[in-house]
């Protein structure tokens, strides 16, 4: 009986178009949830003014950071 | 006894020297001559205004088998810098030159300086003090292969057929290596200072030296050339076994149009001894006063700011006598000065001041011991070793130390 975690992970794997061998399933699933736990902080709300770091730089003859 | 610019003591012991130890020192130098390490040298030691020891060693020109004489004329190279510095301080005393002023006040071509290969605007302007203590941001092109030095090399700043005025004009268009005031970098600063002296006095540096320093002090062979009968007294380097040639040195037997305040002068040991005695006396010799004692005290104080940086040649080039804190030396207005008794492995006294020339000449003045030592040699590859060695040998020959009372 697959757990809800298994279902969520299975969906993520399918959406990414990947194949994970059975013997590595558990390790990859745990890794996936460890990652999601760290990335929780990204759910904190930001203001409208907080733009992303990587933006196109169209200024002529000026370097971008 | 030959005239070496100052009266002789009756015996070295009178001045607190051991004759036996002086002879031991002489044997070390003679051995170097015999082994071909140096072609020859003139060594003069004075204390309390009198000569304790003076000797000519080896050859004035080994290849010509001409023996060294005490009146031999040497290319004193960077020992020109103290002469130029004294000239500048004399103008300052007269109120004609301001040590705190921007160099650009006297040399407009030195205004609007940039720093580094990226040519960013300098944070502050260079001052006359920066020129005197080598913190102007200038360098010598031959000292390294940093981006700025590569740019400088392309500008050919050492052209013997060019006046210093023309060289300084070129310098004005080149980027500095360092921000002014931040870094001690041995440099063309004193050439620029010489040009400042020329502009303020409206005379050539040769005339300034002759009329205001060499003439009044009786330094009869000091100038930018050794022409006429003097030409026969010029000391020459020996052939370098590695290259089979003599190390290249400037032709000084004909007058040139380049009066380099940073390195162009010639002098005898006697001449330079008189110059040193003037400094040790607080600016006066035989009734002729060039500078006030307070000015000499100011020149021989450490002028490097706290946290002063250093260019990469400072330590390797000057070794145990580099004006760096870990060697216990600073730099004043024209000379290096010893700030600590310890730290440097080479002996000296706190407050002694000195400089040397790239061709092998060296002097130091030790006010604590009331002592002056002038070493003249045309041996560029031995210069650092001989600076150390001479200090070691001379201090080892002292039998009484510390101040006038002890002498």
């Amino acid at each position, binding site marked *: 009986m697959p757990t809800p975690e298994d279902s969520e992970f299975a969906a993520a794997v399918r959406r990414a178009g990947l194949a994970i061998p059975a013997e590595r399933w558990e*390790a990859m699933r745990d890794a996936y949830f460890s990652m999601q736990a760290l990335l929780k902080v990204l759910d904190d709300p930001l203001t409208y003014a907080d733009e992303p770091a990587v933006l196109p730089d169209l200024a002529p003859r000026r370097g971008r950071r | 006894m030959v005239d070496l610019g100052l009266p002789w003591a009756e015996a070295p012991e009178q001045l607190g020297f051991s004759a036996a130890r002086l002879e031991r020192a002489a044997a070390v130098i003679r051995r170097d001559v015999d082994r071909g390490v140096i072609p020859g040298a003139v060594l003069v030691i004075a204390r309390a205004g009198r000569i304790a020891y003076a000797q000519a060693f080896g050859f004035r020109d080994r290849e010509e088998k001409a023996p060294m004489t005490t009146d031999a004329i040497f290319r004193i190279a960077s020992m020109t810098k103290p002469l130029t510095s004294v000239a500048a301080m004399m103008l300052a005393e007269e109120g004609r030159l301001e040590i705190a002023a921007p160099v650009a006040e006297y040399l407009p071509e030195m205004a609007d300086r940039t720093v580094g290969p990226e040519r960013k605007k300098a944070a502050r302007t260079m001052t006359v003090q920066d020129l005197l203590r080598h913190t102007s941001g200038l360098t010598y092109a031959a000292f390294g292969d940093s981006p700025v030095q590569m740019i400088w090399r392309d500008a050919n700043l050492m052209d013997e057929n060019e006046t210093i005025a023309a060289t300084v004009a070129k310098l004005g268009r080149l980027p500095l290596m360092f921000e002014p005031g931040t870094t001690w970098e041995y440099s063309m600063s004193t050439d620029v200072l010489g040009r400042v002296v020329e502009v303020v006095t409206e005379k050539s540096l040769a005339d300034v030296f002759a009329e205001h320093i060499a003439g009044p002090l009786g330094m009869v062979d000091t100038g930018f050339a050794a022409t006429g009968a003097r030409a026969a007294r010029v000391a020459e380097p020996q052939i370098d076994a590695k290259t089979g040639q003599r190390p290249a040195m400037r032709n000084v037997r004909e007058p040139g149009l380049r009066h380099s305040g940073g390195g162009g002068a010639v002098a005898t040991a006697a001449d330079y001894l008189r110059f040193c005695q003037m400094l040790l006396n607080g600016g006066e010799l035989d009734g002729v006063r060039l500078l006030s004692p307070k000015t000499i005290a100011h020149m021989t104080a450490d002028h490097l700011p706290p946290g002063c940086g250093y*260019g990469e040649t400072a330590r390797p080039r000057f070794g145990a006598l580099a004006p760096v804190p870990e060697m216990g030396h600073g730099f004043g207005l024209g000379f290096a000065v010893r700030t600590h008794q310890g730290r440097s492995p080479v002996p000296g006294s706190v407050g002694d001041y000195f400089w040397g020339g790239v061709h092998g000449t060296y002097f130091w003045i030790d006010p604590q011991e009331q002592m002056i030592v002038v070493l003249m040699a045309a041996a560029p590859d031995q210069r650092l070793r001989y600076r150390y060695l001479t200090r070691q040998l001379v201090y080892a020959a002292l039998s009484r130390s510390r101040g006038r009372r002890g002498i």
Partner: protein
Amino acid sequence: MNSQHAPPTLAEASRLIAAGDLSPVELTEAALARAAGLNDRLAAFIEITPDRARAAARRAEADITGGRRRGPLHGIPYGLKDIYDAKGLRTTAHSRLLLDNIAAEDAETTARLEAAGMVLIGKLATHEFATGGPAFDLPFPPARNPWNTAHFTGWSSSGSGAAVAAGILPLAMGSDTGGSIRLPAAYCGTVGLKPTYGRVSRRGVVPLCYSLDTCGPLTWTVEDAALALQVLAGHDPRDPGSADLPVPDYRSTLRQGVVGLRIGYARRFSEDAGVGAEQQAALDAAAQLLQKLGATVVEVALPPNDHFQAVARTISPAESFAIHQDDLRKRPEMYARVTRERLMLGGFVTAAQYVQAQRLRRILTAKVASLFEECDALLTAVIPGPAPLLAETDDGPWRKTQPISSAFNATGQPALALPCGFAANGLPLSAQIVGRAFNEEIVLRVAHAYEQAAGWTSRRPALATLPA
């Protein structure tokens, strides 16, 4: 354990060559002999290129003796992490996928080092595609730490760290996406400089993560890093991340000392990242030494480590996955297991998470930049050290710990790793100096002042002083 017989550093070799006291041909032969002699033990090289090296050394020697010395690096050996293109040579990225990948052109950095007259000795081990970890299921073995070959070299510029620490090369190029220049430097006891993002071109270097990848040097001394950066830095119109800013003279400010500088010591930041007592004491001593040298050292607080980690560990895997997704789907078996699994994690990052990470990244960058309004440089750890055993490195798909170094990939400021002592087991410990964006001068200057006063440079691995 002394430097007496260690091979010359970049600066030493440069001075000796300039003075005519060292022959580039002899220097190159010595490097080739050491490279070949030590590769069984260190696996630092994927390919050694003796013919090419000898030809380049002979050319350099002829040019230099003929009065055509190009500059300070002329005639000196170097190595390239095998993700850098060198025309005519294979760039494998340590991967089975690129075994036939012959470079048609030099990377911009390679071209600059070649134009400076340097002599390429070979291509150096990495981790597969500069990510993954030490793996034994690849065509080339993982590099080993010269201080103790049972130990890990640190992250992916692993052959570069090993070759410099073992005295084979005075300069090896690395790349740093989360710390891969600074971490091998830390574990191998060398200097590793990650320049500001945009300072050094990345064109012709196999990408891992476009918005974090940074190219830079590993060297034995800080002065050597300055010498290398002088040649490497500069605008490359063909790298869209390259900054069009002038390049200063890095050596001219190197010796200016730290008197009057304010250095922010991010002590808590290191502690929170798991730095142990031994290394913390070494970092405290480094802070005290800088204070003694005339700097004002103040403790500063950085934003929480997990914010930096969330940013780095979203952006890096997401961009890497985008680069590798086709191969991961069609021929996943070609990768080492650890590479494959770590790359796959990037496939699970959502678009919203990626954008959020880039938004948080801008906030963190501004916060770190604001510290430089009060401080000239920051001092912190690079990674908890010393190097673990190679057999004990974490090879799971999710790295349990993320090194501190990656914070400054997220924010882009220049950061340099250098030794700050030795652990009880004899392995090096490392500190990190961070500076204002595009102000590598201060980083090098602070690091040089510390290095000269601390004196760790004279301690070399025993391997480095063996005859080749």
